[in-house]
């Protein structure tokens, strides 16, 4: 091959021209059309940080107050939620934190109160685990919601990497008599929750990684508590402090909020685990089927108490049920993708899914939950979701 300076110069300028041209096309404001035949022009050169095709438009749906945004479940494949689409929930906005200045303090009923930098923390033995994360309030009374995202979008699943909290607690030396920890964030809410020590010593992570890179700011950069299977808000983000104590501290987020009022006026407290739940994501609200014929029904199931054992599908409004195929891997406390082949005959019907977890707990209908809890509870909402298929193929939320 020729190595003449002129040829190299020509190649370089050609690549640069292509790169600059396509780079412009990547900007959202640029409407430059793609080439008619992409095999006839060179593509763009390697980029330092990737982004999706400009033709992909699915996004999170921020709430009007900006305190949460739902993941577009109806547009996702497989079991991993891309970090950019992972749902958000925060109580005083997302803080901007320089990881070099961030510190984690462990103190209270310990022999050796510790302060760690992020770099020091990362030197501890770490693990990576695929876990679902669901907001305590996900899905509550979603009758008005049109799409899977609007109705149930405050749930996502990522691979989380971090240091088992038990290692750090042992390093600090937990004293006899300790029974809880209090975890505190460094956001403007200084979000604080109490966690039983037994859970803290079991499977809780101090997580710094999400889907292979650093945790996103919305998820707690540079460090979050990750409490597998439990309501999302207890996994304190932007974690700066763990105090080992001998009682729950009854913070606002475990008394005034995230408690459920029963008909007798008593309120259930410390409802930690997220219950088994499933959801058909295709076809789901706001989508439209084409002509009658074959469709693959697909969706997600998860349980905060372990692995999903079974997902059943009804294509006749709950009169009959058939097992869906569970796609491997079927992991504990993670999204499980299910699939079910269906021939639509073109008539109006209602599609439903219901899951059963490894403890034999099966997702209930809403009426059963209302019977057990009355009308004034709001968290841990996991009834069977119904999607109505009209004769014209349109799909609507029909939660019953």
């Amino acid at each position, binding site marked *: 091959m020729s190595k003449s300076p002129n040829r190299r110069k020509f190649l370089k300028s050609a690549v640069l021209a292509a790169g600059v041209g396509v780079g412009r096309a990547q900007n959202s404001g640029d409407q430059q059309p793609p080439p008619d035949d992409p095999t006839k022009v060179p593509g763009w050169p390697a980029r330092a940080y990737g982004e999706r095709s400009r033709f992909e438009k699915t996004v999170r749906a921020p709430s009007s107050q900006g305190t949460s945004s739902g993941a577009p479940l109806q547009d996702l494949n497989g079991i991993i939620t891309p970090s950019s689409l992972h749902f958000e929930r925060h109580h005083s906005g997302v803080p901007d934190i320089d990881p070099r200045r961030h510190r984690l303090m462990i103190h209270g009923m310990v022999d050796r109160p510790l302060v760690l930098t992020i770099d020091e923390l990362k030197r501890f033995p770490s693990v990576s685990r695929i876990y679902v994360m669901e907001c305590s309030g996900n899905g509550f009374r979603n009758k008005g919601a049109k799409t899977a995202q609007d109705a149930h979008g405050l749930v996502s699943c990522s691979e989380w990497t971090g240091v088992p909290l038990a290692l750090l607690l042992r390093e600090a030396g937990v004293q006899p*008599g300790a029974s809880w920890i209090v975890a505190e964030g460094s956001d403007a809410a200084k979000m604080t929750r109490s966690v039983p020590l037994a859970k803290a010593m079991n499977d809780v992570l101090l997580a710094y990684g999400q889907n292979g890179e650093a945790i996103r700011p919305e998820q707690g950069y540079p460090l979050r508590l990750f409490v597998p299977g439990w309501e999302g808000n207890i996994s304190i983000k932007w974690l700066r402090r763990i105090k080992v*104590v001998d009682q729950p501290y009854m913070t606002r987020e475990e008394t005034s909020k995230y408690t459920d009022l029963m008909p007798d006026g008593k309120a259930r407290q410390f409802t930690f685990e997220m219950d088994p739940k499933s959801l058909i994501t295709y076809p789901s609200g706001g989508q439209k089927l084409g002509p009658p014929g074959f469709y693959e029904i697909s969706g997600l199931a998860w349980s905060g108490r372990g692995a999903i054992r079974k997902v059943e599908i009804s294509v006749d409004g709950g009169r009959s049920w058939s097992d869906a195929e569970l796609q491997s891997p079927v992991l504990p406390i993670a999204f499980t993708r299910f699939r079910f082949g269906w021939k639509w005959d073109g008539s109006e019907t209602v599609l439903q899914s219901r899951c059963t977890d490894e403890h034999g707990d*099966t997702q209930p209908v809403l009426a059963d939950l209302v019977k057990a809890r009355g009308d004034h509870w709001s968290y841990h909402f996991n009834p069977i979701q119904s999607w109505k298929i009209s004769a014209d193929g349109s799909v609507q939320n029909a939660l019953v």
Partner: protein
Amino acid sequence: MRWCSARWVLATSLVWPLAAQAPTYGLGRAAKPDEIKAWDSAISPDGKELPPGSGSSAEGARIYAANCAACHGKTGKEGPNDVLVGGQGTLNTNKPVKTVGSYWPYATTVWDYINRAMPYNKPGSLTSDQVYAVTAYLLSLNGIIKEDAVMNAKTLPQVKMPNRNGFIGDPRPDWKSH
């Protein structure tokens, strides 16, 4: 293993069985007493972390009007954000009103949350005296303490909230599977 919520409440009475241990990794450094003091602001129900200082309802009314009323209403009942006053006796009715007075089980939580996160757009801007005063004002508006009562590290944890015994564990799964 099933981690039933009700069991966590019971777990508070258990002692974690750990013998004295030596550090394994030797990473990080010892936390200094002044660092711990600066951050140790979460207030337990027994109030042992409460700082010195005090405040009365009359002082709290002025601070509330300037810092809180815009979001929580002139008398704590009007909103638009969380209603703070009233609602006692409604929790078992068809229209329960959950407020500091009707629902919150511990007065220490009121102090903790105001000190921690309020005012929303200027968290951490109130002094300890001011937090005691606003807490006193809210408790007084709810009829829980007398108008002239002074709140401090000793008196606040002794305040008995009306809904102190209103919380129970959770027996789920509480539905019948078909």
